[in-house]
């Protein structure tokens, strides 16, 4: 499997730079305030695409410094400089810092914060309509709420990248992700079964879950069904965030559908004109290159194109 050959990457990089303008970081929406998640994620995309370029390095270093400047004393990173809660962007900042190999103090603090916080766990009462195991601790979007798939997947990724793949919290987070898989394949946003019915899988959370599990679990039926789900679903998906994460999830397991480059090219025009296109654009860019896997600390898996 090689990097995808696509002709829009130069324009996409410029579009990301345009959205940031001269701000300290990337906003969710062009002209808005810089926010932690898009700042970290877009910086990672720039590094994945062109790790040697001065522009990538300058912007990423500035992002890392800005993220460190808004880090709270307890190690958490909130939404933005003024919006200090909730703390779910913390793993995104940690991923960037560890990828750059800088800000070691900030990394340590963020790591400690993640390890000392978890989503609420509880014993299900008899007759509960929830199908998943509510006693497994992962990470929540907001403190004092239940663990959900996406913040858990990102925390697992970031802590693995920080060298803590064998930490009990990471192992438990992995267990949570596996437990939340939908029986017929893929992941929903958090629940697997409710009121006796399996929920519908979605591409982005499925891609995130596959990223978080790559290299730390064996290729089981759960993984196989999720990969099959993405390969059947992505041909019809042209929304950048879902397509990007779906392809990343496949790539982490050595799978690259033959139509990937075409799908991304078809998704590009709509994302390019969106003022709030930074996150999907960054995700699509990352899905084109195998360097994303090494940047996220994931193993390269042999595989190839098929469709």
């Amino acid at each position: 499997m090689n990097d995808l050959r696509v002709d829009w990457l130069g324009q996409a990089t410029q579009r990301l730079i345009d959205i940031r303008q001269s701000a300290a970081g990337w906003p969710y929406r062009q002209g808005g305030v810089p926010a932690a998640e898009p700042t970290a994620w877009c910086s990672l995309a720039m590094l994945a695409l062109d790790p040697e370029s001065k522009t990538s390095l300058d912007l990423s270093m500035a992002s890392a410094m800005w993220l460190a400047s808004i880090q709270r004393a307890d190690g958490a990173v909130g939404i933005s400089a003024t919006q200090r809660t909730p703390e779910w962007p913390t793993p995104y900042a940690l991923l960037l810092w560890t990828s750059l190999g800088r800000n070691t103090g900030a990394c340590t603090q963020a790591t400690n914060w993640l390890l000392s916080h978890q989503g609420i766990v509880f014993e299900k009462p008899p007759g509960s309509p929830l199908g998943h195991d509510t006693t497994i601790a992962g990470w929540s979007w907001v403190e004092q709420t239940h663990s959900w798939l996406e913040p858990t997947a990102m925390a697992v990724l970031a802590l693995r990248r920080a060298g803590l793949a064998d930490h009990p919290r990471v192992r438990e987070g992995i267990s949570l992700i596996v437990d939340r898989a939908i029986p017929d394949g893929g992941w929903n946003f958090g629940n697997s079964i409710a009121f006796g019915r399996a929920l519908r899988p979605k591409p982005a959370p499925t891609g995130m879950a596959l990223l978080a599990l790559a290299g730390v679990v064996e290729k089981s039926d759960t993984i196989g069904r999720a990969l099959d789900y993405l390969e059947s679903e992505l041909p019809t998906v042209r929304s950048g965030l879902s397509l990007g994460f779906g392809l990343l999830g496949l790539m982490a397991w050595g799978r690259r559908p033959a139509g990937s480059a075409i799908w991304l090219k078809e998704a590009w025009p709509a994302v390019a004109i969106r003022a709030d296109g930074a996150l999907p654009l960054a995700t699509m860019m990352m899905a084109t290159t195998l360097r994303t896997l090494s940047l996220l600390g994931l193993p390269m898996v042999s595989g190839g194109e098929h469709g």
Partner: protein
Amino acid sequence: MADSNHDPSGKRPFRLSRRNLIVGTGGAAVIGGATAFFADRFLQPADVFIAKASDYHVDIASIVRHGFAELGITRRQIAGKSILLKPNLVEPATEAPHINTHPVFIHGVATAFLSMGAREIIVAEGPGHCRDTYLVLDESGMSAVLRDSKMSFVDLNHDDVDVVANHVGKTSLKELFLPQTLRRADWIVSLPKMKTHHWVGATLSMKNFFGVLPGICYGWPKNVLHREGIDQSIVDIVGTVKPHLAIVDGIVAMEGDGPVMGDPKIMQTVVMGTNLPAVDATCCRLMKLDPGYLAYLSMASRVLGPIAENRIVQRGETIASMAQLFRLVDDPMMAKFRPV
């Protein structure tokens, strides 16, 4: 917009007072006149208009304009105004279009407002489960409608936010984070889907406002609100946002395991009103649910508006002629919504 506008038709004046309700920038919003607002809503009887709409091929804009007339909403109140339409776009689901407010319905409402001179139509939503809002738009068919229309779209989940005092206080939340886009709008219009809901009985024009709270602050799902109590949160949000109008898509509704896993229910109904508890109570009666058994409506009736049948003036079709039994999910917890 003036606080009070009198309709030459002689119907009860429709009150709008948004501009003095949310003021301020940089995270410091101030709500004024809240007490008066609640007193108005609580004390006055409310008009609710029920219309028949056989399917999504009918002229929805005409139905909505008829509703405006029945509710005493005039061109003068709409002309030149910025209209924010808040549909219920919960999840991407091409295989289950009855999850979401139908895009044709949203387009029809927008057309009605534009025909009355509205300056702009903003469709705004922060889906409750899915981070990829644009996947929801694609799979609901909304993207195609937006491309061919004069409507713009804002993803409320990722908007910059204002911090606004919670002026109801049914939850322990002292403040709510609200998207700044709400401040752009002169009218905030709830466009929900008529659906059963496995936690609160029914999701209608009030529950729809969970979708204005940004996911970046509340998560996906907005689990903070579940922790605080869904019923209490609904009342706090509606009492703080103070929407002006609700137009319910009950053409193809949802019964059973709503809000996302239920089955389509052919209802052929549109429900409109400026008082959201009254609109939702009417919808409940159309679904053969007693609104008094829905905790958030019971709470709302004490602070936001009437739900009692004798305090709601039904216009258009009658409840008796349109009501159908909506099946609830098969779970013992549902008994509280429809006691035997």
